[in-house]
């Protein structure tokens, strides 16, 4: 076998391995989706989306949980995004490269890996009890914002770092101050990356159950949140509750709830992709 032939086969083998790995992931996903859709698709209806929870599986719906999720995730974004981007700008543009900034950087990376239930305990102690926010939408959103922050900061830093130094230098050369350079030149170019990281962080946060159960989010809420002080529940908690019920009909509800959650995630990720495309060119 010549060297050229060997390389050819090696190339084919790698190609096959890559394809296999991709198909494996897709196959598992397809099996899961098929299972969920065959169990739950029949339950999805306008009534299911607009009804409150009920002891009768066929009357039960996810309105309170769906609205709760939208409220919480919107507030989470409002809290996590400004703080996260602000921290990233400070660390990347002003923080320097000294020992202090390395310590901060390592700590933030570590925080991104802390189990979410720990954030729940922090949220319970800090927001629910000490700051007396109660078991409200705002307490839940603040807890989830803590959870999302490390990811938002890390991805925003990456995006800022990827901005060409030539752009900064050109801006300085024209007499712009540091702040003018960041606001008018660097941020707009880094925006697609920042937005992508932000939406991925929020998508992950939307599926969280443990921290919200820890801070005392509820399971049966017969009304949609009507303010940031309102009690609330979210989709993953509603699904979790239905899964643990003995009657089979609730399992179909759980599957239908998962489909709605998946659809919501798909919309958010699609929005991220659209933003990226829109601002990249």
């Amino acid at each position, binding site marked *: 076998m010549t060297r050229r032939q060997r390389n050819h086969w090696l190339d084919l083998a790698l190609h096959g391995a890559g394809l296999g790995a991709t198909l494996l992931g897709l196959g598992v996903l397809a099996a899961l989706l098929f299972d969920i859709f065959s169990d739950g698709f029949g339950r999805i209806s306008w009534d299911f989306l607009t009804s409150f*929870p*009920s*002891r009768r599986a066929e009357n039960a719906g996810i309105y309170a949980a769906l609205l709760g999720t939208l409220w919480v995730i*919107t*507030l989470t974004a*409002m809290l996590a995004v400004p703080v996260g981007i602000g921290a990233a700008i400070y660390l990347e543009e002003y923080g320097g490269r000294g020992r202090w900034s390395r310590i901060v950087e390592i700590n933030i990376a570590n925080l991104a890996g802390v189990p979410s239930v720990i954030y729940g305990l922090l949220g319970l102690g800090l927001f629910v*009890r000490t700051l007396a926010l*109660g*078991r409200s939408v*705002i307490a839940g959103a603040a807890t989830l914002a803590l959870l999302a922050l490390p990811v938002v900061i890390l991805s925003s830093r990456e995006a800022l770092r990827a901005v*060409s130094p*030539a*752009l900064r230098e*050109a801006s300085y050369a024209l007499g712009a101050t540091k702040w003018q350079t960041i*606001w*008018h*030149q660097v*941020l*707009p*170019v880094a*925006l697609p990356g920042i937005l992508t990281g932000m939406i991925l962080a929020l998508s992950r946060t939307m599926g969280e159950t443990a921290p919200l*159960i820890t801070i*005392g*989010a*509820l*399971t*049966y*809420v*017969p*009304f949609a949140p*009507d*303010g*940031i*002080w*309102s*009690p609330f529940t979210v989709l993953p908690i509603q699904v979790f*509750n239905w*899964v*643990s*019920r*003995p*009657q*089979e009909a609730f399992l179909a509800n759980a599957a239908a709830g998962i489909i709605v959650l998946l659809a919501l995630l798909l919309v958010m990720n699609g929005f991220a992709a659209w933003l990226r495309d829109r*601002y990249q*060119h």
Partner: protein
Amino acid sequence: MSKTDRHIVRAAQRVHRSVQCASVSAALLVAVACGGGAGEGDATRTAVITVDGSSTVFPIAEAVAEEFQLVDPAARVTVGVSGTGGGFKKFCAGETDISNGSRPIKAVEIDACAAAGIEFIELPVAHDGISVVVHPDNDWVSTLTPDDLERMWNPAAQGTVVSWSQVRPDWPDSELHLFGPGVDSGTFDYFTQAIVGQEGASRGDFTSSEDDNVLVQGVATDPLALGFFGYAYYEANRDRLKLLSVDDGDETNGAGAVAPSPESVRDGTYQPLSRPIFIYVNPDALERPEVSGFVNFFLSDGASLVREVGYVPLSDAEYALVQRRVDDRVIGTMFGSGDKTASLTVLLEGGR
């Protein structure tokens, strides 16, 4: 400036306008959200009846809350699932009006409440029969005694009692696979109290899950399994499980082995694994009309809802005794130092 750089700058300016636009709309959203919240927040807070605690009691509380909403549309009942112990933590911190319990309140929890100046009224609302089940193909066991269960589950059995024949010599010499609820659940506490004689005392090497459907699934797919969980989970899966009868050797409460059923749980012949389940009400909260309305509705209209979600209601006479505890504002537990598995009627009458 090169052509590409000019291009970048123009793109940047375009994006910049969008950023400004986006930040303005974000600021507006914040204002709207906060404005809406501040206005209505306090009003809704006071009308909310907060219930939390045991996942076993949750389906009952949910059903009663749902029906109560139709009677009193102004009241808003929320129900959480923190577990019996977690529920009492919140209750004793004054955060909830009503706490669901699948076992009586413990001495340490009473102390915690007392330290915070929180009193409670203890109200039994239903019975649950803890069902002991095996795989349908299991043909060697259909009845067992509390002693058999004790041999399987006591802490010393860990690692040593590993086959069916070690429990009874005439059972096969095959592996014994045990399934039970997680150690935080009231079901686990009650089972260990009734079988081993000490709350929480159990071997640790069994498959445990907080989700009873996992236990159902485990026993239904393993011919060598034995597990226990609330009656409602057996009821919903009766064709996939084999229910065992328990013979407590006491002829006065039903001769021979008795299987859990609505009748045997209610009349107390299914012993020692039938238990009352409770709601604990904060007497200060009970002064609020919506809370007392909810509690009275729970006791007067709860029986059919209890049955509907798979539990066993109290007798009418017992509900009347429980209602009297509410009317008389009887503070404290009826399970002081006495027998924790005594008949509910006896306890209710003794408690007055």
